[in-house]
């Protein structure tokens, strides 16, 4: 917010942080980066049975500039990695990344020349959803974990 750089780390900014984090964690705007089968599972998370709206994250945006949660669902090929990095760079701070599925997190079964062995080698990842594909509950779990993480963030670190 710019305020904290003047005020430093005091009771006022910590209370402000709490308030901001409360707002941020309950209104995540996901940007789906679906490249394979995991993206299909991600769709079911958005639908009414699992309903991501319960966690305040139903406003999907297909533009990185309008979203603050990048969900990488599926394998990322060597041709796609520069695209993913570019999308990550286009997102405004603060931003978070969920790596959904075995492929995005580690390459999964695709130990091949064309598959990135875990996107966390090249972009920062905040939460992982394990599974092939992860069940919707697993992704919800990752989002809840991410919300817990957002609660503890300090705006003083975003200068």
């Amino acid at each position, binding site marked *: 917010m710019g305020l904290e750089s003047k005020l430093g780390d005091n009771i006022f900014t910590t209370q402000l942080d709490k308030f901001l984090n409360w707002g941020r964690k309950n209104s995540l705007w996901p940007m789906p980066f679906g490249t394979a089968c995991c993206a299909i599972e991600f769709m079911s998370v958005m639908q009414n049975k699992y309903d991501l709206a319960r966690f305040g994250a139903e406003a999907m945006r297909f533009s990185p500039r309008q979203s603050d949660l990048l969900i990488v669902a599926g394998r990322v090929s*060597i*041709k796609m*990695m*520069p695209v993913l*990095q570019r999308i*990550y*760079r286009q997102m405004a*701070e603060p931003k978070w990344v969920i790596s959904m599925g075995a492929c995005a997190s580690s390459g999964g079964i695709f*130990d*091949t*020349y*064309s*598959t*990135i*062995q875990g996107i966390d*080698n*090249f*972009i*920062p990842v905040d939460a992982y959803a394990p599974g092939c594909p992860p069940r919707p509950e697993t992704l919800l779990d990752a989002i809840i974990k991410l919300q817990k993480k957002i609660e503890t963030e300090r705006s003083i*670190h*975003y*200068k």
Partner: protein
Amino acid sequence: MATPLEMLQKVQDKFSDNILKTSDRLGEATVSIERDCIVDLMNFLRDDTDLAFDFLMDLCGVDYLEMGGFERFGVTYHLYSMKYNHRIRVKAFIPETDPKIDTVSHLWHAANWAEREVYDMYGIGFNNHPDMRRILNPDDFEGFPLRKEFPAEGIGYRDNFEKIERLGAQ
């Protein structure tokens, strides 16, 4: 509709010098040829009134290595005739020392991208192709992934990206 034997006979009569082997195993006509006659043969198969192979179903590369091909590499063409509902398979063999063959993309436009894929994966060049570039791998990729000597994990391309750090990392 021509039976496999009739088709093979027709091809045999015309191209006997360049044919390495023919087969009608399982009722499928297969003809193995030297690469030099590929355009003439394909032209003949397409334009002959009794054969009329108007559809190139698929075209793919093969690395025979120790699988007993006539040469190290091969390009396999699968043709189909919409008119007569019959098929033929053509195998052209290509030596490792000079991996090149003439394009058939002027006969069937479908061959254009398929030939680029063969080039991308096996490094087999197609003479006179209108746009001989890689199609699946990045342009600066090195090596030909489907050649047998290429390691499945690649030779480092997948590990060579810039690492983006978290802003305000704690």
